[in-house]
């Protein structure tokens, strides 16, 4: 965000709140039961490293099943890491237990995608919002009531909401209730897993603005997980792109869109439909073939090589590319990123869909803004 608090952000950002090092999270496979052979582990997250600075929003994007949710849940230690380290404010969360883990957990909260199933339908809003206070023994009785009203106010809900039940609220309002609940314990980090994906477009903008206001007012740090790239770019300072359990690119939000360096990022961006027929008619799009391979059996070498329109005869199939810094603060994991960026290596022709041209005459005639 190009907001007007240079001093504040500068001092805040010189330390990382979260530091993830070579994180792996494997799940035992069920495949064996169906196909009669012992399946490989599902490598949901397979060697991921990144940092989140204090007060920033790190966006995490990628196709469904690529491991975004698993990363988020493991940060909160809802899953145990298979390997690697997660440092939260300098503490290795995997080594904590009991009271220390609880104390740390209070500082990290999660907001979920589904505003319907994530709230207990039998509890009223006051109970839902104050539950974390009770769990952590932070407030009860009239003090808790006061805090509930304060929280409802912060997220833009009327005080009267306290006595009502989740089903009486719309999706956007339920998401506000979920936010109020996660703010109850004054967390430092909020992992927001697709927090607006289930909402209507007109409501999404309300919730996004609220998230931004809360960050400014309360100094929150966000890991913002979503598959809508336009939304992620709007809200994030930096963005990490995941593919099949690994991070393939990290860059400042605007830079990622202006100059994507990894072929997967390029394909992802070019697949997003733009709400402007003139733009849609004139841009070239990279169409990936095939589906996401199974995370139980990821391709050798570069995991993207089975679908990559830029794949080369050497290295791609058998040498795993490391995340390399290619510009300041901009890393990508592709052997050929420089040559692709300079245009020396071009995508396979059959992967490039020609501009749509004048599907409606009028659109084609209009100059692209």
């Amino acid at each position, binding site marked *: 965000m*190009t907001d007007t608090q240079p001093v504040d952000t500068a001092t805040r950002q010189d330390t990382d709140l979260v530091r993830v090092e070579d994180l792996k999270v494997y799940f035992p496979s069920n495949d064996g039961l169906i196909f009669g052979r012992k399946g490989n582990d599902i490598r949901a997250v397979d060697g991921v490293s990144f940092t989140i600075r204090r007060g920033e929003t790190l966006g995490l994007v990628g*196709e*469904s099943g690529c491991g975004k949710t698993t990363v988020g849940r493991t940060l909160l230690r809802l899953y145990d890491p298979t390997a690697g380290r997660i440092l939260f404010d300098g503490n290795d969360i995997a080594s904590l237990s009991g009271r220390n883990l609880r104390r740390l957990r209070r500082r990290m909260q999660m907001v979920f995608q589904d505003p319907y199933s994530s709230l207990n339908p039998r509890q009223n809003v006051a109970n839902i919002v104050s539950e974390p206070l009770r769990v952590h023994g932070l407030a009860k009785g009239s003090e808790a009531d006061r805090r509930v009203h304060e929280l409802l106010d912060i997220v833009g809900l009327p005080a009267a909401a306290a006595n009502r039940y989740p089903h009486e609220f*719309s999706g*956007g*309002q339920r998401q506000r209730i979920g936010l109020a609940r996660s703010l109850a314990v004054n967390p430092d980090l909020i992992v927001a897993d697709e927090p607006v994906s289930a909402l*209507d*477009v*007109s*409501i*999404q*903008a*309300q919730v*996004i*603005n609220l998230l*931004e206001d809360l960050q400014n007012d309360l100094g929150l740090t966000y890991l913002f997980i979503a*598959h809508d*790239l*336009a*939304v992620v*770019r*709007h809200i994030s300072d930096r963005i990490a792109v995941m593919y099949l359990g690994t991070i393939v690119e990290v860059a400042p*939000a*605007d830079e990622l*869109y202006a100059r994507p360096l990894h072929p997967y990022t390029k*394909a*992802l*961006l*070019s*697949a*997003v*439909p*733009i*709400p*402007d*027929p*003139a*733009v*849609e*008619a004139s841009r070239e*799009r990279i*169409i*990936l*073939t*095939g*589906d*996401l391979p199974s995370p139980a059996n990821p391709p050798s070498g570069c995991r993207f090589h089975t679908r990559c329109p830029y794949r080369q005869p050497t290295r791609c199939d058998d040498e795993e590319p490391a995340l390399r810094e290619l510009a300041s603060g901009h890393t990508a994991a592709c052997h050929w990123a420089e040559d692709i960026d300079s245009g020396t290596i071009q995508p396979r022709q059959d992967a490039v*869909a020609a501009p*749509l041209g004048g*599907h*409606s*005459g*009028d*659109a084609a*005639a*209009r*100059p692209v803004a």
Partner: protein
Amino acid sequence: MPLLEVRDLQVRFSTRGKTVYAVNGISFDLDPGDTLGIVGESGCGKSVSSLAMLGILPKPAGRVHGGQVVFDGEDLLTLPDERLRHIRGNDIAMVFQDPMTSLNPVLTVSRQLTEALRTHLDLGKKEAAAEAASLLDRVGIPDARQRLRDYPHQFSGGMRQRVGITMAIACRPKVLIADEPTTALDVTIQAQILELLRTLVREEGMALILVTHDLGVVAGICERTHVMYAGRFVETAPTGELFANPRHPYTVGLLKSVPRLDAARKQRLDPIGGAPRDQTSEPTACAFAPRCAYASTESWEQLPVLRELDGATGPAAHRVACWNPVPEQDLVAAGIRQAPTGRQTGDQPDEERQA
């Protein structure tokens, strides 16, 4: 005479003494080869309209309250079930958000496809099998012949949607209604499916009705777009015109509230305040008035009907159902249009109309 003519379609649901006014009078024409988008938020009546046209509303709660759906001279709403089923199999087909809706989980894809082909196209066993394989090939399923032996659950989401589309186009329908066909899919897979739909429309001359909440999806594929709110069309125009010159406050609100990848990052989004209308009463005024910055006394008291903007008629017509269409300077302020002094904006809509 258009291929499909929908006139004043109204649908209501009655459950536990409550009535939901789901669709409150929509009309449109569809000609062969047309691509028509219907966009709107959740609950505005997009799916219910499609189901009603095909006579597959959930019974007994849902019923058509009025209107006509004339296909090839026959009103589908009054046809006997058997005749309607014939039309559904042969002339008008539907693709759903969840492809499993149209697939039987316990039959192989081959079995389902060949059966459809045999009953509707009167093909022999061998011919049907060959046709099924060539169709799967056509929609981009690798190893088509081999995959025919698989069950639907053995396909990925994107592949399953391809199979759903295959089922729908198997009998070469004249009209394909696709209800959020890519909403459950990732963007890269969505791009594949949209590309496929574009190709099919172009090569088969099918007419397409694409129902979606995603403005970006209609922008890339539909010639004309209807914007729906609370069971009515509030604006309709050629897609290019609609995006360049939206005049209904709801359309403008939608365009302003989505962040765009191709534009500079905004400091702040402009949401539409409030929430969509709960449709438990019949609209007697503008349903958008409670959320609208332009609402006037008329908006609160009288139902606005679709009216032509600037007198253009026929395929170029731009219609708005609003007592106070958004003035041009507000579009400029919102960054949707350039200032009229610029070289493009002012005269452009006219050029379009001639096209």
